[in-house]
């Protein structure tokens, strides 16, 4: 008999308490996964859903950079309580170790991820949105285990409209498919720049490449300097411009229908 993996069992159980589990992944770094995770979580919350946002990025947690808080994470009888801000429940290692480095790999990282997820005490959520770091390492492996066990789960993949980005996203997509994970579609970020009345596509168009992936494009977001300005001034990224807000809202609505 193989002894049970206590922490993994508990991590998967706690994640499965949410009605729907939505992973935001890419495989490629720097494509805006965290901004999209935050924007989707916030938009779903504004649509009246109860949403939690879990930052699984151990080495470069981004969520505390947007939802800034000096509050300490609290531990209760039920585990570690997520921070409650802007109508969301938030958990990120960044709220615990702030800007300090977390040099970890292999089994130690997996062990940390399991313990963090096993201890986080989410309330009964409509959605748990999980922001995955780049790559197909420990974080994605744990995510895949959770996705497999959750009856209402899905993954969105974020890419830039570049062949390099898409080639890496394709690997993540292949992995997810091989594992039987439901991929809802692709979000193309930094797709175009609006220049006066014109739309400029600095990376060109990948429409044909997407069609070969066998999944749909859920939406495209512009390369919008106002997003950075919004972040610098403490505003949420999806509120940066009307165009971004409408695009995120349309993607969130599609995800609602699909999940």
């Amino acid at each position, binding site marked *: *008999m193989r*002894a*049970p*993996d*206590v*922490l993994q*069992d*508990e991590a998967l*159980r706690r994640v499965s308490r949410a009605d729907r589990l939505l992973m935001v992944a890419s495989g490629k770094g720097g494509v805006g996964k965290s901004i999209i995770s935050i924007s989707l979580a916030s938009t779903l919350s504004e649509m009246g859903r109860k949403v939690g946002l879990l930052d699984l990025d151990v080495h470069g947690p981004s969520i505390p950079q947007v939802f800034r808080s000096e509050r*300490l*994470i*609290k*531990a*209760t*009888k*039920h*585990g*570690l*309580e997520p921070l409650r801000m802007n109508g969301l429940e938030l958990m990120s*290692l960044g709220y*615990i*170790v*702030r800007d*300090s*480095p*977390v*040099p*970890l790999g292999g089994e*130690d*990282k997996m*062990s*940390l991820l399991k*313990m*963090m997820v*096993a*201890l986080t*005490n989410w309330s009964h959520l409509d959605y748990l949105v999980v922001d995955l770091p780049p790559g197909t390492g420990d974080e994605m492996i744990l995510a895949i285990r959770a996705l497999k066990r959750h009856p209402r789960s899905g993954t969105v993949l974020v890419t830039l409209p570049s062949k390099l980005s898409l080639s890496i996203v394709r690997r993540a997509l292949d992995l997810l498919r091989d594992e039987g994970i439901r991929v809802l579609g692709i979000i193309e970020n930094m797709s175009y720049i609006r220049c006066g009345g014109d739309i400029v596509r600095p990376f060109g168009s990948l429409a044909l490449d997407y069609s070969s992936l066998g999944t749909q494009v859920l939406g495209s977001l512009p390369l919008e300097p106002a997003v950075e300005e919004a972040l610098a001034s403490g505003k949420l990224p999806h509120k940066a411009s009307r165009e971004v807000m409408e695009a995120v809202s349309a993607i969130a609505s599609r995800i609602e229908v699909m999940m």
Partner: protein
Amino acid sequence: MHEWSLADAVVRSLLGFMASEGLDSIKEVEVTWGEILELDTGIFEQAFYELSKGTPLEGAKLVLKEEKAYFRCNSCGAEWDFKTADEILSREFEILEEPAGVRESPLHFLPDLARTLLRCPKCGSRDFDLISGKDLRVSKVVA
């Protein structure tokens, strides 16, 4: 305070294990816990027996086995124990235990953060291994 949530995790995991193995009852379960977790074993036992009530796990004897923590530096080869680690632990980061309002090191909740919260006491490197004493695991089940 995390004793209750960890005991809950052990109980639920064991119940799943019993179901998958077709076990109606368990005589004894041994849980190994790492020194870094700083478990209050009295609270853990109380939580375990309380949470087991009314489940197929009720009546199982709990044996708690502590595993001492040891660290080894990959840069200079120094080794140290938990007492030393606790003395040099960064107090910069804290988790607030409620309702007592006590501030605790995150190390007791997330032992794998050791490299963030500690440095080798001899050479100051973060490149060290936590050789033992961080886990919580079911180490033996007697059906």
